């Protein structure tokens, strides 16, 4: 960690976005994580993404559980809403917040311990319900805060820092999210900011449960030879299925020159996800084939990254429940207590 506050001075040509903010305005406090932590790169990618889509910081709610990953919301968007919940319980707090105020952008930040062990049930059910959110797992395969025990996402055979092999099968959160019905599933790597920033922008624009599994090497406990979540290993085995370009709805869409290799997915809010295909046999809109694709590549020891699955006409929890379109805090007494005539009507309907 660092003792001094990051100097306010910035590059004289630092650009500003449509709100007049620079990227620096989206920063949070200086990170207290270990120097070199992949999580800090993910925070930097979130900052960059929010800056690029001109997100007013106070429109974001960032929620987390417990763990190194769950500390990170302090380190980005210092001017947004935050909730640091109990271990593994971030999804329920997020679900509640989302139901109370549907106008905010919800970003759940979790880790492999928080989501794949203690919070596995919460994770699966939150996805299953289609809560409108971006759910990011900062996945390093170890419990960093307790000095590097294997987590549930550690690959079988992966070596600990002391050399012990992991005997258990890994929990693949991407596959689990697909099974649970996530309408947006991506995987990325903290060391590939370009890919990660586009995925985050697309996920924020997505309606419904958007899940991102981000491999994030733990420099202190899981960046050695024999680890399958080290910088070197992930770089060596990273197979990107596509290159994503996120195009906001307000931008003009330029026609593709070679439609054979590019897929455009128009999302609910009019934003377009332009996917340049890198893997021949990958169709990001077919859930069953994507699940197959992932299993095939997992078996080969490859780490597939990119936008793996996306459902263009997605729906979210609020649609399904048919609840009010307005945040609860904007409902007046008249809205909440429509009077005895209305009550009569309801009661009549139940007879």
């Amino acid at each position: 960690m660092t003792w001094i506050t990051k100097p306010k001075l910035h590059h004289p040509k630092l650009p500003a976005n449509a709100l007049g903010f620079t990227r620096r305005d989206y920063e949070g406090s200086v990170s207290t994580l270990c120097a070199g932590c992949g999580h800090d790169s993910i925070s930097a990618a979130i900052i960059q993404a929010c800056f690029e889509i001109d997100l007013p910081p106070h429109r974001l709610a960032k929620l987390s559980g417990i763990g190194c990953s769950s500390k990170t919301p302090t380190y980005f968007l210092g001017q947004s809403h935050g909730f640091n919940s109990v271990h593994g319980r971030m999804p329920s707090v997020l679900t509640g917040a989302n139901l109370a105020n549907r106008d905010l952008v919800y970003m759940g930040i979790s880790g492999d311990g928080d989501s794949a062990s203690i919070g596995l049930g919460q994770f699966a059910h939150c996805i299953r319900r289609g809560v409108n959110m971006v759910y990011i797992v900062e996945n390093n395969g170890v419990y960093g805060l307790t000095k590097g025990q294997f987590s549930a996402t550690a690959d079988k055979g992966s070596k600990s820092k002391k050399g012990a092999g992991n005997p258990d099968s890994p929990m693949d959160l991407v596959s689990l999210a697909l099974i649970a019905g996530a309408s947006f599933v991506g995987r990325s790597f903290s060391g590939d900011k370009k890919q990660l920033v586009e995925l985050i922008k697309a996920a924020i624009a997505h309606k419904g449960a958007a899940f991102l599994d981000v491999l994030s090497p733990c420099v202190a406990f899981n960046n050695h030879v024999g680890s399958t979540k080290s910088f070197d290993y992930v770089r060596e085995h990273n197979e990107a299925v596509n290159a994503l370009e996120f195009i906001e709805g307000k931008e003009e869409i330029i026609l593709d020159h070679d439609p054979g290799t590019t897929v455009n997915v128009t999302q609910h809010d009019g934003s377009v996800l332009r996917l340049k295909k890198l893997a021949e046999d990958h169709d990001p809109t077919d859930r069953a084939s994507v699940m197959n694709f992932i299993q095939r590549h997992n078996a080969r020891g490859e780490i597939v990254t990119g936008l793996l699955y996306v459902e263009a006409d997605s729906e979210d929890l609020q649609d399904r429940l048919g609840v009010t379109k307005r945040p609860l805090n904007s409902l007046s007494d008249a809205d909440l207590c429509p009077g005895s005539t209305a009550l009569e009507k309801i009661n009549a309907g139940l007879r």
Partner: protein
Amino acid sequence: MGAGTEALEQRPVPDKGNRSAGHSGNGAGMPPTDIGNPQYFHKVVDCQWACPAHTPVPEYIRLIAAGRYTDAYMVNWKSNVFPGILGRTCDRPCEPACRRGRVEKEPVAICRLKRVAADNKEDIGDLLPPRPAKKNGKRVALIGAGPASLTVVRDLAPLGYELVLFDADRRGGGMIRSQIPRFRLPEEVIDEEIDYILDRGFIETRFGTRIDSMKQLLSEKFDAVFVGSGAPRGRDLDIPGRKEAAKNIHIGIDWLSNVSFEHIDKIGKRVIVLGGGNTAMDCCRTSRRLGGEDVKVIVRSGFEEMKASPWEKEDAMHEGIPIHNFLVPKEFTHKNGKLTGVIFEKVVAKKDEKGRRQLLPSGEPDQHFECDDVLVAVGQENSFPWIERDCGIEFDKWNMPKVNEVTFQSTNPKIFFGGDAAFGPKNIIWAVAHGHDAAVSIDKFCSGEDVSKRPPPLTNLMSQKMGIHEWSYDNDISNAIRHKVPLRDQKIALKDIRAEVELGFDQSLGYAETQRCLNCDVQTVFTTSLCIECDACVDICPVDCITFTPNAAEPDLRLMLNAPADNLTQDLYVSSPLKTARVLVKDEDVCLHCGLCAERCPTGAWDMQKFLLEISHATEARCSRA
């Protein structure tokens, strides 16, 4: 767990981590930066690089911050000989170069901090070089006792040279004493700093002695002669009325000199100063103190193009002196042998076909300004009527001696030039730099060595790491804007020509200003083999100066970085290829030297190392050879 993790140690990994650019990592990429070359890091210390005498500026600023004023003074004294004088009068080429001015509005007030060191130092007697025990048998004559000659004296005296210093004035200092007004530079400061020099060895001063013949001087059998006689002739303005009104038309530098030596103590109420350089600024401000009530400066060219330093223009205008521009003097008007005013032609600046700037008549009617006195400060030039053209010194077509730009040797091997006498009018700090180089040459010449072989600078590069995130320099820089120097109440200042206008920073203001320094001499040193490409440094850098990218030729590489690297005067620091075949590129331009890259680096691939470069002067060069 995939196969081939061992092999990974040796071979570069294809670039999957950063697929932003389609450039290949091989071919005509930039070669790794050679940080073993002292020039590289010297250039990063913009202030020191810009200083003709290469004063280690950040080093003394930190000493001031630590309250070590005497040590700060000595760092200066070693490099620039006249810290107290320069702390008030320097042309400060360091300040426009200062990196702070590129990340914020204004540079660090380096010059005024130098004065803080001078004002607050304790007795430095014990810190001066020891007086030589015996003569070394060589005699050197120095003509003109200005900053160039005095620097030569300072550098040679400790080596046992017998030095004979000539000056036409009765006291030493040259233009420092004769041309800079006392309200900018008090006499005590001049005396003190000249005494440090003249008190250091076998030095004979023949002040009040004008040298009229080089030949005659050479007949005195000196082993070497140094000409530091300055640019003593002020340019005149040959326009109608000049002769008739001569009584009230004065040459600027001569007039200032007469004021300085108290031959003149008043001037008319209405004064026009012609010229836009620093001498003109001194002339108008001096006039204000000698009875001039309506003093104005009138320049041919535009206000922006004036040669005077911006702060000197500001100081003049602050004293109620207007500056009129685009007016070319055409005629002095006079009545009964007395000056009545000056007629000016109005001009405009236009560019000709070749893009050169020209002043063309605007067509408006001429303008007449009434006045009682005119001071002509339109430049000064060299003048060597006393050097016989057959004493071995060749002159060029501009009637300037041919002088080697490195050794300062003339075509007569035993005669050296420096200061304004060498290449025309510059300033004190250049004269000092010339003096240092000439002293090295004179010492080598007198020892029978090759003067073209120059001593290398002394350099040191040392890690500042004290603990995990602790550095032996203060990396927590201040966000404050440049502090203003307090001034004396103008009513008092304008009444007394000896009352110094600037009061200087006190210790607390001085401390506050030191905290604006970015410590550009504490270098970011990168070790390729330790880097794991985790991007931590990229993410933390407050000024986006770090990028990991495929290599490319410099013009392309400059466009591929996280922030535009369009300041071509600033280098790119390029590593050798990393594991992913990418390179680390750091744009030195706006680096804050805050050390956060090194603090966030998990492997110590970045380290903060202090680079100290000291120019070898004759004294040190001789000692290190001994």
